[in-house]
């Protein structure tokens, strides 16, 4: 919405943020009224925003100040990003602000409208915090890892003498150790210290709340024992974007019926008597939802990438892959036997450099021209929360005659006014993307993945992909769950439930992210993605946040090296439409309280 174009930054605060946050919370509690820029559904014109902004007195007692009033730069920026495109359907002008004519003369108003509805409000392009503390934090983080490593080696040195039985798995007589030194050292001496933050067992549904099974360790995280007690906590860790992780309601009812009619599982590959009417229905529905000719489903998201890329690419082909692409894509590239080059995360300029160089120099050694080149990117990067710069990439793809493969694992359902993913978000026609891949694990509360594309490509996959020929099909309850949730998102159930979920998700995401940014946390990613990574830096913070949040009754995901670069350990909050404002506020408050000890509010300005 245009309202959110206006950037807000905290100014002039006294003491540590609690007081301010209360004021802010109060302001937010005014809720959906048009007065709050956080209200995603606010119907306001740019005129109104500008007029309102003009009335704000910087010296007034308000804790907030509107700093950037001119929406033009971001519009220009936007147009620079997304050149001409053909809209698939007209957008409702009432749903977004009206563009004042005088302000944007050179801009096609229609186009601006469409984009204003989708465009990310703040893009945290430069991730480095401005604070003077930052270099110290980096230094301390490095020191922490050095300390951990040195102590680990000291312990190993003495341990091998004093307790050799603990190292038996590393030195079997006549065998080479089963894992490399680094892997083993990392697991034994660093990972194990935070192991209680990972693989936490749960029971029941991972919805807005989840039920943790309490576990204890008697040997410093080597083994865990379940105590038999359970605990309900707020779930900020599951990819339950649209809140379809449910055991009741329309989806569950339909799945139950489907279980009775179609059974529990089929034990054949698709090609060998394993294609069920449900699969056909699901593929048709998916293609329609995504907006392509045809689609194929696979019963595991990871395998969708790792088995389908090889069906399209082979020797003599080049895959140009974003450096932060998911492991399944990397696995698929390896599996395909084609050459892989990486470009800087979400950087179109670097992509262009790689493409130019690749096309100019051809295949390695022989210098023959490439058979074909495919760019692989993700819609939302799950560890960064960033949205792929699709318009620029589409532009490059056309210019350099490459093919484009977008992994929408996290963006399908979660992005775009209709939840139809990255193309919906950028208003890029789906025909500009050759292959749209996504998973059903996240937004749809099911499992598995799909690939949507033209019929010719899907037929190739159907006939050649490993998943269609060699592995089990998607089980019927999973199929049904996707069909039901898709129907709801598409409004086929005759209600607004689907759209409400999409709106609520966006609303929740922007609310929490904006609060975190304003409070001075270093947050990665684009404004309206449901993945919110908060930077923690120090490895001890990783464990501290992981455990202390649990004590506070909030389940969050913390990630450190080697899943992230050494310095940028982070905590990842996954927003769901099932979350209430209270859930988000609790998470926020917890972070504020923990931040005094962990020093993670590096952008906090206590001027």
């Amino acid at each position: 919405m245009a309202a959110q174009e206006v950037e807000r930054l905290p100014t002039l605060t006294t003491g540590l943020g609690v007081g301010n946050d209360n004021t802010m919370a109060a302001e937010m509690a005014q809720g959906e009224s048009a007065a709050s820029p956080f209200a995603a559904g606010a119907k306001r014109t740019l005129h109104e925003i500008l007029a309102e902004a003009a009335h704000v007195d910087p010296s007034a007692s308000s804790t907030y100040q509107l700093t950037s009033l001119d929406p033009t730069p971001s519009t220009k920026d936007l147009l620079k990003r997304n050149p001409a495109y053909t809209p698939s359907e007209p957008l409702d002008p009432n749903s977004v602000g009206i563009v004042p004519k005088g302000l944007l003369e050179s801009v096609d108003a229609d186009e601006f409208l469409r984009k204003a509805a989708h465009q990310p409000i703040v893009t945290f392009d430069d991730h480095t915090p401005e604070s003077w503390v930052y270099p110290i934090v980096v230094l301390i983080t490095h020191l922490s890892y050095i300390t951990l490593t040195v102590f680990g080696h000291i312990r190993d040195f003495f341990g091998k003498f004093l307790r050799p039985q603990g190292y038996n798995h590393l030195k079997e007589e006549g065998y080479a150790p089963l894992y490399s030194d680094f892997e083993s050292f990392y697991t034994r001496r660093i990972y194990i210290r935070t192991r209680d933050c990972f693989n936490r067992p749960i029971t029941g549904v991972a919805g807005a709340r989840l039920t943790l099974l309490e576990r204890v360790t008697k040997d410093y995280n080597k083994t865990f024992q379940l105590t038999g007690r359970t605990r309900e906590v707020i779930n900020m860790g599951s990819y339950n974007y649209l809140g379809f992780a449910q055991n009741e309601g329309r989806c569950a009812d339909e799945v139950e019926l489907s279980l009775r009619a179609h059974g529990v599982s089929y034990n054949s590959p698709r090609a060998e008597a394993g294609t069920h009417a449900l699969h056909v229905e699901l593929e048709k529905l998916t293609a329609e939802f995504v907006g392509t000719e045809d689609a194929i489903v696979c019963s595991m998201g990871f395998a969708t990438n790792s088995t389908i890329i090889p069906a399209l690419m082979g020797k003599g082909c080049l895959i140009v892959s974003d450096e932060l692409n998911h492991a399944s894509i990397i696995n698929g590239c390896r599996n395909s036997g084609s050459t892989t080059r990486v470009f800087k995360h979400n950087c179109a300029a670097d992509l262009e450099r790689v493409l130019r160089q690749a096309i100019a120099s051809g295949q390695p050694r022989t210098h023959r021209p490439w058979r074909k080149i495919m760019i692989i990117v993700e819609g939302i990067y799950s560890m960064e929360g960033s949205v792929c710069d699709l318009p620029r990439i589409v532009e490059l793809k056309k210019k350099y005659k490459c093919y484009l493969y977008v992994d929408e694992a996290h963006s399908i359902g979660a992005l775009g006014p209709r939840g139809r993913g990255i193309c919906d978000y950028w208003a890029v026609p789906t025909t500009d993307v050759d292959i749209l891949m996504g998973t059903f694990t996240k937004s749809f509360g099911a499992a598995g993945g799909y690939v949507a594309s033209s019929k010719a490509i899907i037929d190739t996959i159907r006939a050649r992909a490993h998943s269609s020929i060699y592995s089990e099909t998607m089980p019927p309850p999973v199929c049904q769950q996707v069909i039901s949730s898709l129907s709801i998102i598409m409004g086929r159930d005759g209600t607004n439930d689907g759209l409400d979920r999409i709106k609520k998700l966006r609303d929740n995401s922007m609310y929490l992210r904006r609060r975190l940014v304003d409070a001075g946390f270093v947050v990665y990613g684009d404004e309206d993605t449901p993945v919110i990574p908060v930077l923690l830096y120090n490895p001890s913070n990783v464990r501290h946040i992981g455990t202390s949040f649990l004590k506070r009754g909030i389940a969050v995901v913390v990630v450190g090296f080697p899943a992230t670069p050494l310095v940028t350990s982070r905590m990842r909050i996954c927003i769901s439409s099932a979350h209430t404002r209270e859930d988000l506020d609790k998470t926020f408050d917890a972070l504020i309280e923990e931040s005094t000890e962990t020093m993670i509010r590096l952008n906090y300005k206590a001027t």
Partner: protein
Amino acid sequence: MTTTSDLNPETVALLERGLRLAMRAVESVPGAPAVVNYLSHSYHNDRWRLFLEILLVGILTKYLLSKKYRPREAPAVVLTDREIDQLVAEWEPEPLPMPLTKADNLILDSHIVFNGPSGKYLAVDSKRCLNFASLNFLGMTDRIEIRHEAEKVLRDYGVGTCGPPGFYGTLDAHLELETSIANFVGKEMAILYSYGFAAIASCIPAYAKKGDIIVVDEAASFAVQRGVYVSRADVHTFKHNDMADLEAVLQKIEKTRIARKQPLTRRFIVVEGLYQNTGTICDLVTVTRLKTQYKYRLVVEDSFGFGTLGKTGRGAVEHTGADMGKVDFYVASLANSLAGAGGFVAGATDVIDHQRLAGLGYTFSASMPAIMARASLRALKILRDEPEALIGRLRANTAHFRQALTHQLKAAGLQDTVELPGVVESPAVHVRLVHGSPLLAKLGDDRFDEECLLEAVVTRARVGADVVDPAEAEAAEAAFAKETAVGQMWPSLAGTTQEDLTLPADAEKAAALASATLLNGLPHGGVVFTRAKYALDQELPVPPPASIRVVISAAHGQAELDRAAAVLAKSLKLVISERFA
């Protein structure tokens, strides 16, 4: 030699002052006095040494500051932007979809779509067909208890887990299943993968890296090949199930290693328990002996053998009497015998735990839906409770089918034309054409021709009016119903009734659903077989020969087996005689 008198005294004073200042500045740098001290001493002791030292430092600095040589990054020829633009303009990529080959089209055209449950029967084209294609060895997908369990689990857990195992995706249902499987197969720990293909394809690369050695059977199934290939280790193959060749390969590797003085790397032998592509059982006793002797780690993939071989269903290891302790990784799919989805790897605790971080298909993938985990758990319990009834029956069925088919083939005069390779215990029977036999003399070497022929047989058996006789089907089903003990295990046609499908709200929909899926209401059809399908050009190193893979289930009745054998033999005869008439 110039003297100071030649210079202006003022200049000298200035120089001296400058020198003194410079000295003071140098001295103020921490550690500088020591350096100066060292240099002056060095100069006094040996001027040449000082010269050499300074030279050395100079060379070192120059080396460190010099540009690194990176052979991969810098292109040999630097092109101008205009030249690159021209190259871009000239370059024409191939179309993205690879052109479909005849074999691809055959696979596409031979997809059949069924409705309702998949068990002993399949509803294809609104006909109730006997199913000899699904890998439903123990008839678990027909068991009503598993379906009831699934309905219950749905109300406790929903469907998806919405996260990888590391991030709140580990359910108690998974832990229970892992423990039960580990106990069942007799290993310390098991790890679940949500996709059967991913289990073996992730397990091998989790340990085997570049420079490691993998010795693998040449007839290993595709998932195994992928796991081996993606690990980038050095791969050596040995002749299918040929222990002498395996030993020769191991000896050769060891000899090369010693000759080249290479360090010890990780070494693996990868075999299948019951080979999917050939229906043979691996000689695991010898393999475990060789493995110990040559110090290799052993990976056994047993998706077809798990639940079907051995007295209690513990797979090929139990069947051959090998020592499970010598099998480092026991990998199998849960989708075949246990009516679930996904697969598992069982082994020692330390070793398996490593996969929770390094097994890509585990770490980076959403965990298995609770319904599937609990379904498998329930199936495992059934298998444990009644191994005799299931495995004994499966074995008897398999033997009976082979016998019946052999008999029927003989009656049809095809005994020399069609062969049934593989061991008698294998519930997947490959039906192959014998090249060069009198009837097939005209069949060329073209793989595609042969596949087409087999596909014609499969289609004939399902829909051919001259082959399929509904009356026979009814008789076979009636005979099955009379086997009372079995009838209880597999209640009539998966036990679904009209009432089950009726929701109070949507009677119309329920009726439509019932008419499409309720097997009871459908007329009898033919028998569903399938060709064994392969992605031929991607199979390494030897594509398996073409065959029809007949899968026997414990749920089949004897009369039904007889009927399937008769239909298959008849279809074969008709198709072959029509083709080569």
